């Protein structure tokens, strides 16, 4: 048994120490909003925040996290109120199939926290998540909209 700090709470889990954080979140803690897409830190579907920074959780061994604060998509809406990015996402109808969108929303939330008024170049640099439905145009528009909100 080991402990992680997830979404503001200390939670117990049992897993081999080398298990990627992604699978501990999904399979041990039932937090399936964080998605498996590639397993090699390419697609970004598994993006969570660790101490506020966006991280691809498929490539983070759970034993390397220690007591750092993990934030997942499930806890982004504090007390049930969507954050700025989520609101903009809903307002601009961004998702299509939606499978990559947890990762997109986590990456965009981190971007806005670091750069409240991101330029297109900032967005290009920060939003390396893959979307196969092709929501990129809406993603960009929604980040700009959230920045103005």
């Amino acid at each position, binding site marked *: 048994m080991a402990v992680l700090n997830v*979404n*503001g*709470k200390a*939670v*117990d889990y049992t*897993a*081999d120490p080398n*298990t990627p954080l992604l*699978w501990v979140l*999904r*399979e*041990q*803690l*039932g*937090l*399936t*909003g*964080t*998605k*498996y*897409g*590639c*397993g*090699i830190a*390419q*697609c970004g579907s598994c993006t969570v925040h660790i101490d506020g920074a966006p991280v691809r959780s498929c490539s983070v061994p759970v034993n390397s996290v220690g007591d750092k604060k993990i934030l*997942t*998509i*499930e*806890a*982004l*809406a504090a007390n*049930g109120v*969507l954050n700025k990015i989520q609101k903009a*996402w*809903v307002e601009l*109808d*961004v*998702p*299509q*199939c*939606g*499978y*990559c*969108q*947890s990762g997109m929303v986590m990456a965009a939330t981190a971007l806005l926290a670091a750069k409240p008024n991101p330029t297109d170049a900032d*967005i290009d*640099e920060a*939003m*390396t998540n*893959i*979307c*196969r*439905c*092709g*929501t*990129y*145009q*809406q993603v*960009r528009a929604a980040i700009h909209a959230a920045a103005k909100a």
Partner: protein
Amino acid sequence: MTIQTSLGRRGFLVSGAAVAGGFSLGFHLPFEGNEAQAQAVKELNAWVVIHPDDKVVIRIARSEMGQGTLTGLCQLVAEELDCDWSKVTWEYPTPGENLKRNRVWRNFSTGGSRGIRESQQYVREGGATAREMLIAAAAKQWNVPAAECSAANSIITHKASGKTVTYGAVAAAASALEPPKEVKLKDPKDWKIAGKPLKRLDTVEKVTGQQMYGMDYTMPGLLNATVRACPVIGGKLKDFDAGKAEKMPGVKKIFAIDGNAVVVVADTYWQAKTALDAVVTNWDIGDLGKVSTATINAMLKEGLDAKEAFVGNKAGDAQKAIEGAAKKVEAVYSFPYQHHVTMEPMNATARYTADKCEVWCGTQNGEAALAAASEAAGLPVSQCEVYKLMLGGGFGRRGRSDYVRQAVLAAKQMPGTPIKLIWSREEDMTHCQYHPTTMAKLTAGLDAQGNLVGLQIRLSGQSILASLLPQNLVNGMDPIAFQGLMQSGVEAAYGYDIPNLMIDHAMRNPHITAGFWRGVNVNQNAVYMECFMDELAAAAGQDPLAFRLKYLKPKWAAVLKAACDKAGYGKPLPEGRFHGISQVMGYGSYVAGVAEVSVSKDGQLKIHKITAATNPGHVVNPAQIDRQVAGSFVYGLSAALYGEITVKDGAVEQTNFDSYNVMRIDEMPDVETVLVPTHDFWGGVGEPTIAVAAPAVLNAIAKATGKRVRNLPLMNNDLKKGA
């Protein structure tokens, strides 16, 4: 009855503190617990259920996979129902229930951009029938003629008496009435809900992590499994050694299925995957090991000049016309294998017992999944059921049920235990039904005035039908091979009127399984035809638009002109930027694109903008069409820029996004959608525009660099000056 439902989007609450505690949190389990509710409230008909609190539940048979079909279909039903859109929610009927009810929901298959256009008539009738029954129930209650009552926004009004009643209050009484034999559907010009840019019905769940996909499904006692099939498609499993893997943590069982794959079942996916990595497998691949991209290409090249070919489109005598022409132009193009790469790798959960088999999965074809489950389980269809979950992308891949079959075969090894079988991305990448590879030799004759007098197109390459549905071949011919080049029809007809024409197909089928990939054969056929039209225009010394307009039939010409007008084609562009154009008809719609690109001195391509025009006949939701068009370019341009599945020693070489690249946001052009509906037919929108992306970009590149790229993907071509 068993019904699946979505989370009601209104009244959505983010479940708080979905952290500690395990599997029960953060999930919405469809259909379970909803059964009692569905029984308590009687349906008005197969499509419409109205609850006493006025909630409208619309049943959707097609699968939502991002394309927006569920929102569009709900709009069509709601329009005829005259209900309050804010009260609308939706649910999936199950394929098993459909069979029990004599296929009352008709076709579940979701592909070919058919979701809306092929079900619009009967779903609208479902809405209209329900409305008439609600009005009749109110009229009966008030003892007035139904003809004196009207309905709007879920309220029925009797004007003379001023009486009103809500749908919810009369729904129970209405459900007991005989449905009207005939209903009159509204004229689309009177639409208030359909035709409008309404928001999707499935968004909030997708931005809060609450949306459950097949990958997220669980139930008590569920075990996780993963699979490794022979890396060479068609190869067999000789033997395997699981001695080490069996002893690894969490492992429950390791076994072979179908004589070509090994499955590990464990407590968690990660344990199963880790153990599978430790399984030693030996494969029997026979001569398939000699196949490579080079041998496949040689096979296709031979087809370019082969004597025998299936004729798909013919007029006059092309050969004679070209022989007698003042100028002859010839070019050979090629298009490689593509992978769908849905963001969610293939997966399915199955539970098998001696008398029942159930499957939970994302599928584009619930009924095919049901048939696959029945076959794999060895149980009659009536003892099987499929519960559809949200798809993390489909693009044609989830129209096949190979992953369902594997999950059922795995579950059969452990009766009573639900098994979730998950493919790794690597397994997914190497075991697909790939977009077929083809080549084309195009030969044309121009007269002295630069008029096109004859055209021959020899297609050579793989047939999807031969690979997946050989029973659908027509005397050996695959009609789908001619998509976009077909002689006639409402689906994918050729837009040019050329006096002497011959389009034929030399079928060459490598062992790599071919399948339906968003846009299917329209994609490469549009590249061949539309790039060659630019080559011909250049040879004739004419502008590509003017040259095309000499031969394009009116509906094709109109949409191309609309795209060009919007893009400012022919007007000066910023320094270094060039326009390329293309058009095609596919999936019942007419589409055209204008790409604006620049190529730097060192060969760097930048796609600045694509203006795309679509005539889909009727428009059900313009905002969703916008998104489908923009998204389709990401799909089409990813293929054009990077998409290439190659074969070595009989096996697919690419394994993940690091070896099969796709577009990211930094390469996304500005997409402007132009809708030019003519309101006289029903066309699809999920796919057609994909096909105009690549040729428009290639034509613009040719203008920018003088280089004619004829072999995709672009990454294999050097666009540098002088290269």
